[in-house]
């Protein structure tokens, strides 16, 4: 017994030593200054996907003339934000990194990790003036710009199946009343009026974003996100919820939308096979449909702006979605001038042309002159005009809020849609974010 307990004490002491050792090792990696960063290179981290082709080309162009070389780090898919969060305050942090603007960088700004781009813009006003303002503003936080647009814009549009619409003698709705009338006709014919992959939750969220924008105007969400939670309880907010409820009660989405996903091909297939007539989705829906059935995407896939709501405060030209992706620069970078010069390439003709070639739609002012080089010029022109004319381009709510609010937000959105929460419950959940 005695030897046993002595052995136990000794092993516990050993565990404590290991723990302290690990803790000290953890501390030493925590202090990262410019001096500890690599020499003669800057690291640029991007989300790993098909668009990397353009980024590789731009980096190669840049490295031809620059003494400090750019190294492109492609971080694979879905876990991007998690990985960024774990490395951004360490020595391994990239100098320049891809993000979604808004809430995706807000915590980094608060922690003082990012470089405000005011000085860059003072040295080269083109870093601001050559981009569409509604897009550029997405990465402005507390009045300071923190990001430069670097991929394509992804507005949310109302897609339709032209064959189904023609067979039922309906045209794409331009007003809310027309939408409700179309829903009624389609439902009577046994067709799901609107495909919705509700299990993904962000798909359902898009309906809230547009209806709130049309009914209450973009100001309501702006106030909500800047901390004025009372707006969720306002008359305009309740009116918007009423519109959502009307659409659901009209049977617009069928009954099993919470078991359907967009991400596994469920809802796009409903639209493509004519079992549903409409789907509200981001511009990437075109390439989703194209990879499944190129003929359908080219001939039968229709797209329009979200219908206007008469008497609402929001402009019918307003758009929601992902304005663009952005490059932000960390404060600890050793070569800010190199980062600045690299960012300048984001409005170059070469970047715009390369992006158009793979189906992305950049948001620079010179994009317009290359629209006819796009894979589908009509689709590219429609989107560009939509975004350019938009008085407001609301970033998706789940990206606008910091990550901590993401899950409760999407949960509330799903619960109000399927009836688990009533109006008061939804308002309370939004105020708790």
């Amino acid at each position: 017994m005695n030897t046993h307990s002595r052995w136990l004490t000794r092993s516990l002491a050993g565990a404590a030593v290991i723990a302290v050792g690990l803790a000290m090792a953890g501390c030493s990696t925590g202090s990262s200054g410019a001096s500890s960063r690599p020499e003669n290179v800057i690291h640029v981290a991007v989300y790993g996907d098909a668009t990397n082709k353009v980024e590789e080309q731009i980096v190669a162009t840049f490295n031809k003339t620059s003494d400090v070389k750019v190294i492109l780090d492609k971080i694979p898919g879905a876990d991007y934000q998690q990985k960024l969060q774990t490395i951004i305050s360490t020595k391994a942090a990239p100098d320049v990194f891809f993000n979604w603007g808004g809430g995706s960088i807000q915590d980094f700004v608060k922690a003082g990790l990012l470089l405000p781009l005011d000085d860059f813009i003072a040295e080269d006003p083109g870093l601001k003036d050559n981009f569409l303002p509604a897009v550029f503003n997405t990465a402005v936080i507390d009045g300071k710009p923190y990001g430069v647009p670097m991929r394509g814009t992804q507005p949310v549009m109302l897609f339709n199946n032209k064959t189904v619409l023609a067979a039922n003698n309906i045209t794409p709705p331009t007003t809310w009343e027309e939408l409700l009338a179309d829903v009624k006709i389609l439902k009577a014919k046994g067709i799901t009026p609107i495909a919705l992959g509700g299990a993904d939750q962000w798909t359902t969220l898009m309906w809230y974003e547009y209806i709130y924008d049309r009914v209450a105007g973009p100001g309501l969400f702006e106030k909500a996100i800047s901390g004025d939670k009372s707006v969720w309880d306002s008359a305009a907010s309740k009116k918007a919820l009423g519109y959502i409820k009307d659409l659901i009660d009209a049977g617009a989405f069928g009954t099993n939308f919470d078991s359907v996903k967009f991400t596994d091909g469920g809802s796009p297939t409903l639209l493509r096979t004519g079992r549903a007539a409409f789907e509200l989705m981001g511009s990437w829906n075109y390439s989703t449909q194209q990879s499944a059935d190129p003929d359908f995407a080219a001939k039968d896939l229709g797209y329009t702006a979200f219908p206007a709501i008469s008497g609402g405060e929001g402009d019918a030209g307003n758009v929601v979605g992902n304005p663009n992706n952005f490059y932000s620069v960390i404060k600890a970078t050793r070569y800010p001038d190199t980062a600045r010069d690299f960012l300048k390439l984001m409005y170059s003709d070469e970047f715009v042309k390369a992006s158009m070639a793979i189906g992305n739609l950049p948001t620079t002012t010179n994009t317009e002159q290359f629209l006819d080089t796009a894979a589908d010029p009509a689709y590219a022109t429609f989107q560009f005009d939509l975004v350019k004319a938009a008085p407001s381009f609301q970033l998706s709510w789940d990206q606008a809020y910091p990550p901590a609010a993401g899950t409760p937000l999407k949960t509330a959105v799903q619960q109000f849609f399927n009836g688990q929460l009533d109006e008061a419950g939804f308002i309370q959940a939004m105020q708790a974010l």
Partner: protein
Amino acid sequence: MTTLAPRKRSARSGGPSVGRPGAVWAVPATIFFALFALVPLIFVGVLSFTSWSGLADPVFVGFDNWVKLIADPILTKSFGLTGLFVILGLITQTPLSILLGVWAAGHQKNRAVLSAIYFVPLLLSSAAISILWRALLDPNFGIPGQLPWLFGDGNLFGKQASAIAVLTFVSMWQFTPFHTLIYQGAARAIPPVLYQAAQIDGAGTVRQFFSVTLPQLRNSIITSGILMVVGGLTTFDTVLILTNGGPGTDTTITAFYMYQKAFRAFDFGQASAIAVVLVVIATAISLLVVRLSGYDKMQSAQEGI
């Protein structure tokens, strides 16, 4: 010669340390356990008293996380759901795997072939199984779409009861083969003389099963039960892929809620507090099961044979 050697060694060592290796033998396992279980556990305990998003240094906030934890209705609900999953897992998997295990213990050719096929789910990863069943249960293009008389509109993932039923069913499909394997081994180890004696006493197949097989499987039932409870408490991947905790928070079990707090909300302090609670509950349940079942007394089921 070879039969003599061990006898000689045991005769030499003698005394109270017969067959017991010294403490040194436990060193590798202890170091491993300390490094990969105890140290992280200590860190998690410390983190539960801090606020940390992974960005700056953790800030000590006292009992804030714990106070929030007590007031969190989703967490309270998740305990109930976790308990429900554990119980549903136990009552669906145990009878099925005992019956299959005892059946598979027979030495007939067809049983060997069928059990080999039946063990296939054991070879698949949980993620693969979840993706497979998600596709099979798609309301429009899966089985429910073809059998509307059985599944209605096929909204399996949109209602709490059916979502829980799906998760329970998929766990059963995935884990029953494993527990069957345990029971197959245990049933084969039952001495045939017990059955011969029972037959002489006039017991039929059913009576033999309840009076000989089941009592002999007692320790295996406890082992398998503990594995099911611990497995149920840590179920995560099937929930993540099949229901994502939904509809709403209706299948957000505690382990999944911890993941949401840590890796979606980046609230590592709160997540650590949940982790500590999970560790305490899992340990308590294991100890309780061991105590109540008398497993710690290490009684043999074959005493008196």
